[in-house]
C-alpha cells in the first residue's frame, strides 16, 4: 500500500558521477527538462519586456536541464537562445550585467558546471529586474508613463504573508501619472513612489537571498542562485546607500560580487564572513526611507502597542505567578508589535540621538526578555515593575520623537485595533469569553476615542455600522458583544470579525481620503456644534419651561451653570490640545462620570420639578407666607447650577473631542469658524424655541416639559449605562433576538442589553412615580387645606 516507487537508470548513472548533495538538483533538472522547454517563444522584437525576461529565465533553466543530461552543446544552445531573447531597451548598466551573466552561463554550460550555471541564472534574473527598475525610472523622468508601465512589469515582489502584502505604490503611481499631465511635480511624486516601492522590495528580497547564500545547509545550487541574485539586487540599492552617506557602496559591491566565486570555490569561511558583513551593512540603512506619514504611523503603533503591554501583563500575573497565560501571550504579541515598529523607526531615531536610541533598544530588549520569561514561566517580573519599565520607554520615546510622530494617527489606530481584535478571536478560540470581552472593550475603546470622533464628523452611517458590529449588531448582522456574551462559536465570531474588518477598512479609507478644503471642514465643525448644541437646547428648554413668574428666579442658577459649562468646555478645549492622547485614554471614563452626575442631578430636579410645579400650581396664593429656609434655598441653587452645568457640559465635552479631530486635519482657525457658525445657529434655534415655549399655556407647557424631562432622563440613563458598559463598569447581558436600529441608540439611548433597558425602565418609573407621588401629596394637601375651610363654612 505504499506509494509507488520508481527510479530510472539515468538517475543511477548520475549518482555515480556526482556528490549526493548535487544529485538532487541534477535529477530535478533532468526530470524537469520537459517542464522548462516551453514552446518556442515569438521573436524577441514582438515581446514585451516581461515576456523577454521570462524567456531568458526559461531558456537558462533549459540549459541547466541540458547540463544535467550531459548535453553541454544543447546547454550552450539554450544559453545562446537566452542571449537572443534579451529585451530591447534594457538600460546599459543592467544590459552589461546581463551580458556578463550570460557569458558566465555559457562558460558554465560548456563546462557542465550546474552550480555556476545556477549562479549565472540568478545574476541574469537580478540584472533583468535591475534593468526593469532603471528603465521604468528613466521613462518616468522622460514623462513617458506608458513606457514606464511596460518596464515595471519586470520586477520582483515581497513575499506575500498573512501580515504583509506586496507593495503596489509604483503601479498606482504610474497609473496616476498616465492619467494626468506629467508636470514636474507629478513626475517627482511618481519617482518617489517608485523608489519607495521597489527599493523596499529589493532590500527585503536581497536580505532573504543573502541569508540563503550564507546557509551552509541549503543546496549548493540554490545558494549559488541566491548569491547571483543578491549581487544584482545590491546594484539597485547602491545609489541610495551612497546618497545617504551610509558607507562606501563600491566596497559593499565588491563584497556581493565576491560571494558567488567564494561559494563556487567551496570557501565557506569567506562566504560566512562576507555574508555576515554584508548582512550588517543591509541592516544599517534603509534604501527606501519611511515617508513622514509612514513614520508617524509606525510611531503611533509603537506607542499604542506599548501602552497595551502593561495592561495585559497586569491582568495576566500576580506578584510572582502567571495567572492567565493568554493575557501574558497578548502582552508578548503587543510587545512584538512595538518591537517591530521600533525597528522601523530606529534609523530615524538614531539620526536624532544615537546614544538614547541605543539605550531605548536595550530597554525594549529587556522588556521583551522579561515577557518571554513570564510566558515560559521561567520568572515573573512584578506587574508594577513591568509597568514602570514600559512607562519609562514610553516617556523616553515621546521625548525623543519629533512632534509630527506623536500626533494622532488614524492608520496606527486601525493597525493596533486589528491586533486587539486578533486577541478577541484567539480568546474565543481558547474558550475564554471573559478575556475575549475584555479585549473587545479594549478594541472598542481604541476605535471610540481614536478614529470615531473624526469619522463621526464625516461618515456617521459608518460609525453606526461599526458601533453596531462592536456591540449588539447592525442591520441584521449580529454584534461582537452579543456573540461573546452568548459564547458563540469561533466561526460565528470570525464572521462578525470579517464584517467588522470590512467596515473598519472602509472607515480607514474614508479617513485617508477626507476633504481638506476649509469649506468642508467648516461645514462639518458647524454641523457638530449645531447637533450637540441642539441637544442642550432641548434639555434646557425642557427644564426651564416651568420657570416662569415667581419661578423665573430659578433660571438664573441654571443659566449660571450653562455659562460655567461653556467656560469649562473652553478649558477642556485647551486641555485637549495639550494632552489629547492622555485625555483620549480616559475619555470614556470621564464621560461616564459626568453622565452619572448629570443623571443624579436630573433625578433630584425631576422630583423637585413635579413637587414644586404642583406646589406652585395650587399654592400660588400662599407665596408670601412661605418661609425661606436658607439651607434648602442654597442646596436648590447649587443643584440648579449643577444641572445647568452638567446638561451643557456633557455635550460640550463630546463636541470638544469631535472637534479636536477636525483641528488635526485643518487647524484651529478653520475649525473655530465652523464653531462660530454652528453656535450662531444654535442661538437662533434656542431663541425661537424659548420664545415659542413661552407662548404655551402654562398647563400645556407643564405636560410638555414633564414628558420632555422624562424622555431626556430615560435617554441619558440608557446612554450612560452604555458608556459604563464600554468601560467595563457594568456587565452586558444581551436581550436575545432584539436588535434595535442604530438611531434608537443614538437618539434614545436604547441598546439591547438587560442592564440598559432595566435602568431605563427604572428611570421612567421614577419619573411617572414622582409625578403621581407629587399629585397624591397635592391632593392630600388640598384636602388638608379644604377641610378647615369647610369646617369654617359649616360653622
Amino acid at each position, binding site marked *: *500500500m505504499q506509494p509507488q516507487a520508481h527510479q530510472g537508470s539515468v538517475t543511477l548513472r548520475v549518482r555515480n558521477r556526482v556528490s549526493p548533495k548535487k544529485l538532487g538538483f541534477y535529477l530535478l533538472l533532468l*526530470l524537469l527538462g520537459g517542464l522548462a522547454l516551453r514552446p518556442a517563444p515569438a521573436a524577441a522584437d514582438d515581446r514585451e519586456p516581461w515576456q523577454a525576461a521570462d524567456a531568458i529565465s526559461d531558456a537558462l533553466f533549459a540549459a541547466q536541464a541540458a547540463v544535467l543530461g550531459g548535453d553541454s552543446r544543447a546547454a550552450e544552445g539554450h544559453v545562446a537562445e537566452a542571449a537572443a531573447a534579451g529585451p530591447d531597451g534594457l538600460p546599459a548598466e543592467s544590459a552589461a550585467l546581463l551580458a556578463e551573466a550570460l557569458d558566465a552561463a555559457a562558460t558554465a554550460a560548456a563546462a557542465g558546471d550546474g552550480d555556476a550555471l545556477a549562479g549565472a541564472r540568478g545574476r541574469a534574473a537580478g540584472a533583468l529586474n535591475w534593468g526593469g527598475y532603471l528603465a521604468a525610472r528613466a521613462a518616468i523622468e522622460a514623462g513617458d508613463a506608458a513606457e514606464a508601465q511596460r518596464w515595471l512589469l519586470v520586477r520582483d*515582489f515581497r513575499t506575500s504573508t498573512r501580515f504583509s502584502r506586496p507593495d503596489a505604490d509604483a503601479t498606482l503611481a504610474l497609473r496616476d501619472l498616465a492619467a494626468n499631465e506629467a508636470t514636474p511635480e507629478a513626475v517627482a511624486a511618481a519617482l518617489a513612489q517608485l523608489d519607495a516601492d521597489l527599493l523596499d522590495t529589493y532590500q527585503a528580497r536581497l536580505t532573504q537571498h543573502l541569508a540563503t547564500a550564507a546557509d551552509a545547509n541549503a543546496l549548493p545550487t540554490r545558494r549559488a542562485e541566491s548569491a547571483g541574485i543578491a549581487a544584482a539586487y545590491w546594484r539597485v540599492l547602491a545609489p541610495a546607500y551612497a546618497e545617504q552617506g551610509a558607507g562606501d557602496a563600491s566596497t559593499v559591491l565588491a563584497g556581493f560580487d565576491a560571494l558567488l566565486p567564494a561559494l563556487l570555490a567551496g570557501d565557506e569561511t569567506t562566504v560566512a564572513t562576507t555574508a555576515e558583513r554584508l548582512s550588517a551593512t543591509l541592516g544599517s540603512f534603509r534604501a527606501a526611507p519611511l515617508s513622514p506619514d509612514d513614520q508617524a504611523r509606525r510611531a503611533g503603533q509603537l506607542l499604542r502597542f506599548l501602552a497595551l503591554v502593561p495592561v495585559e501583563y497586569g491582568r495576566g500575573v500576580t506578584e510572582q505567578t502567571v495567572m492567565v497565560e493568554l493575557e501574558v501571550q497578548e502582552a508578548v504579541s503587543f510587545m512584538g508589535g512595538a518591537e517591530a515598529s521600533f525597528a522601523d523607526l530606529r534609523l530615524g531615531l538614531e539620526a536624532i540621538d544615537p546614544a538614547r536610541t541605543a539605550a531605548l533598544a536595550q530597554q525594549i530588549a529587556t522588556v521583551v526578555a522579561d515577557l518571554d520569561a513570564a510566558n515560559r514561566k521561567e520568572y515573573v517580573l512584578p506587574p508594577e515593575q513591568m509597568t514602570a519599565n514600559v512607562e519609562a520607554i514610553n516617556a523616553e520615546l515621546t521625548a525623543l520623537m519629533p512632534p509630527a510622530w506623536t500626533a494622532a494617527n488614524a492608520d496606527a489606530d486601525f493597525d493596533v485595533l486589528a491586533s486587539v481584535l486578533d486577541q478577541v478571536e484567539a480568546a474565543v*478560540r481558547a474558550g475564554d469569553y471573559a478575556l475575549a470581552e475584555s479585549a473587545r472593550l479594549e478594541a472598542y475603546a481604541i476605535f471610540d476615542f481614536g478614529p470615531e470622533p473624526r469619522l463621526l464628523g*464625516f461618515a456617521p452611517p459608518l460609525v453606526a455600522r461599526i458601533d453596531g458590529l462592536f456591540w449588539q449588531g447592525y442591520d441584521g448582522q449580529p454584534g461582537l458583544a452579543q456573540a461573546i456574551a452568548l459564547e458563540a462559536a469561533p466561526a460565528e465570531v470570525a464572521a462578525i470579525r470579517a464584517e467588522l474588518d470590512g467596515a473598519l477598512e472602509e472607515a480607514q479609507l474614508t479617513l485617508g481620503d477626507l476633504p481638506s478644503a476649509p469649506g468642508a471642514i467648516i461645514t462639518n465643525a458647524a454641523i457638530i456644534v449645531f447637533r450637540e448644541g441642539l441637544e442642550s437646547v432641548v434639555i434646557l428648554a425642557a427644564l426651564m419651561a416651568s420657570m416662569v413668574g415667581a419661578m423665573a428666579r430659578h433660571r438664573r442658577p441654571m443659566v449660571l451653570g450653562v455659562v460655567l459649562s461653556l467656560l469649562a468646555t473652553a478649558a477642556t478645549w485647551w486641555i485637549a490640545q495639550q494632552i489629547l492622547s492622555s485625555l483620549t485614554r480616559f475619555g470614556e471614563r470621564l464621560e461616564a462620570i459626568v453622565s452619572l452626575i448629570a443623571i443624579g442631578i436630573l433625578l433630584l430636579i425631576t422630583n423637585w420639578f413635579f413637587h414644586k410645579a404642583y406646589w406652585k400650581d395650587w399654592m400660588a396664593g400662599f407665596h408670601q407666607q412661605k418661609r425661606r429656609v436658607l439651607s434648602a434655598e442654597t442646596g436648590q441653587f447649587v443643584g440648579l447650577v449643577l444641572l445647568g452645568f452638567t446638561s451643557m457640559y456633557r455635550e460640550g465635552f463630546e463636541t470638544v473631542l469631535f472637534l479636536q479631530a477636525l483641528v488635526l486635519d485643518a487647524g484651529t482657525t478653520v475649525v473655530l469658524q465652523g464653531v462660530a457658525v454652528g453656535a450662531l445657529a444654535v442661538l437662533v434655534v434656542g431663541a425661537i*424655541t424659548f420664545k415659542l*415655549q413661552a407662548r404655551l399655556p402654562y398647563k400645556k407647557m407643564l405636560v410638555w416639559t414633564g414628558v420632555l424631562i422624562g424622555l431626556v432622563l430615560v435617554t441619558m440613563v440608557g446612554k450612560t449605562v452604555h458608556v459604563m458598559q464600554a468601560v467595563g463598569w457594568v456587565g452586558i447581558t444581551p436581550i436575545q433576538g432584539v436588535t434595535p436600529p442604530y438611531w434608537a441608540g443614538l437618539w434614545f439611548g436604547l441598546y439591547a442589553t438587560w442592564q440598559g433597558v432595566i435602568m431605563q425602565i427604572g428611570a421612567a418609573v421614577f419619573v411617572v412615580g414622582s409625578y403621581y407621588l407629587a399629585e397624591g401629596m397635592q391632593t392630600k394637601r388640598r384636602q388638608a387645606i379644604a377641610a378647615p375651610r369647610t369646617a369654617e363654612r359649616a360653622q
Partner: protein
Amino acid sequence: MSKWIARLLSLVAVVLLVACGGAAEQAQPAIEATPAAATDAADLAAVKQYTLDNAQQMKEGTAALATTAQSYYDLLAGHNFDYAAAWAADAPALTQLVADAKAHWLTASTHYELDEGIIAGVPSLAFYDVWIDAGPSAEEDPVEAYEWTLELADGRTLPSPGNFFHSLLEPIIWGTRADFVGLPADLDSDGAAELGEVLPEANVLLAAAQGLDGATGEMITAVEGWQPSLSDAFTALVVMIPTMNEYFEQWKLSAFVNEQSQEQSFIGVSRLFDINGILAGLDFTYGNMATLVQSADPALHSQITDGFADLRGYVGDLYNQERAGTRFTGAQADLFGGEAQAKATALAGQVSQAAALLDVEIAE
C-alpha cells in the same frame, strides 16, 4: 394654537436634529469603493457556484464516509469490538468497508481541495479550512489549535484534536497513529500488513466521520450565505497562491517522497494533487475576474494569465511524473518547492497589483 406650538417645538427639534445627521452624511467624502459595474464584470456568482458545487460533491463523500463508518462500527460492535475476532470472522466485509472509507475520504478530500483556495482564502470562510483541513491539534501547536472536542460513542473525548481530514480521518483510516488502530491487517492479501493496512478503531472513525459530515454541512451553509466580493476573491488569490513552500514541505516529508516517513498525514493522496486542486480553484476564481483586470491593465492580465498557466503546468507535470512512478527525493522536493515558490511569489505580486489598480482591498 397651543397644540400647534407644542407640535412645532417638537418638529423643530426633531427635524433639525435629523437634518444635522443628513447634512453630515452629505458632507462625507465619496469613498472610491469598487464600482457596481466593476463587480458585475467579475462573475463572482460563478465563483460561489463553483465553491458550492464542489462543497456539495464533497458532502456526498462525507455522507458516504459517515454511512460506511456506521456500518463498520456496527459490524465491530457485533463482535464486541474484538478486532481479531471480527477480522477472523468477517475479513472480506471489513476489507471492503475500509476500502470504501478510503474511497469516500478521497472523494471528499478531492472536492475540498478544489475549494480550498477559496475557503481558506476568504476571511469569512477561513474558519472551515482550519476545522476541516488545516488546523493543528493541541499536541502540535497548543497556541494555534482550534479548541473543540470530538466525543466518541464509548464516552471518550479528544480535546482539540486538530482538523478532520489530516489530523483525524487520514491517520485513522490509514492507521498512521497507533491509538487510532484497531488491528493491523493484511487488507490486500499480499502476506504483510503494510503501511496503510489497518482496521481503524471504530469509535474514533465513526465520531470523526460523522463530525466531518456535520462540519461539511455547516460549511455548505456558510458558503450559501456567503456574498462574494471582489475583496474576497482577490484576498483568496493573494493569500493562497504563495503557500507553495508549505505544501511542498508537507509533500517532502510525506510517504510519497520519503520512504521512511513517520508523518501521519498526506498518505492517502499526494500533496501535489492537493496543490493542483488549490491552484485549479484559484485559477477558476481569477478567470471569473479576468475581464475586469484586462480592462484595467491588459499587459498585467496577460502576465497573470501566463503565470497561472506556468505554475499550474509546472505542478501538474510533477504530479503526472509522480503518478507515472517517479519517486522524487527530499532534495528535489526542496528545489521544486523553491522554484514553485518563486513563481507563486511573482504571481501573487502581480495579482496584488491588479487588486490595487481596481481599488480592491486585500483583507489582512
